[in-house]
């Protein structure tokens, strides 16, 4: 892993079009400003990991379409 040391207001450039700026460093927290093309997805690692885990859980199993259909109808009724 490449390790770079940066001070407040200094930047890192990745490729041609991603710029990360150290905006603030305070009490063990770093604020980063990231500018990147819109097709580059940027997330906090732990949130992405949580969504990834949930998607894997959701994709888990074959479902009973008849039963799901019935549940759907009940939902409709509950909503009036």
């Amino acid at each position, binding site marked *: 892993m490449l390790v770079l040391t940066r001070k407040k207001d200094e930047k890192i450039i990745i490729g041609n079009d991603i710029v990360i700026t150290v905006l603030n460093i305070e009490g063990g927290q770093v604020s980063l400003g990231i500018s990147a093309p819109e097709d580059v997805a940027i997330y906090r690692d732990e949130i992405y990991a*949580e969504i990834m885990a949930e998607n894997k859980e*959701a994709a888990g199993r074959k479902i009973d379409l008849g039963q799901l259909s019935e549940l*759907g109808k009940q939902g409709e009724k509950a909503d009036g």
Partner: protein
Amino acid sequence: MELMTRDFGKVDIDQNEVIKFTQGLPGFENYREYVLLTLPGPNPFFILQSVEEQELAFITVDPWEVVSGYEVNINDGDKSFLKITNKEEVLILVIGTIHEELSDMTVNLAAPLIINVRAKLGKQIILEESGYAVRQPIFSQEAKEQVVK
């Protein structure tokens, strides 16, 4: 074209029904083409079936049919990425997770699927600051009422 699906067996789909998730979904980054299959009758559920992998499918649901007070803001980057020009072409669905049985299903309100039905482009966005649950119960009245932030 014919497509083998997880829940419906073999179905006939038109190539122009295929929705491209060009970044995949988190955890399934390599699967990028899906079709939305409908269930019989008036029903808020859809199955998002991978075109590339028969065994990969998700239960999805129109969130406004199952919870109240849900809001999704699509940022400009995602609007542009999905070529969204007006809200009529936007379909928003959330993914359901079944835990023990269907009736304990929760939905992932933190990461809705945004689909441009005209351009056939989709993306699962993450509403990082929203405080919405990844596992929101939907099949009880109390569960529905808890959703508002």
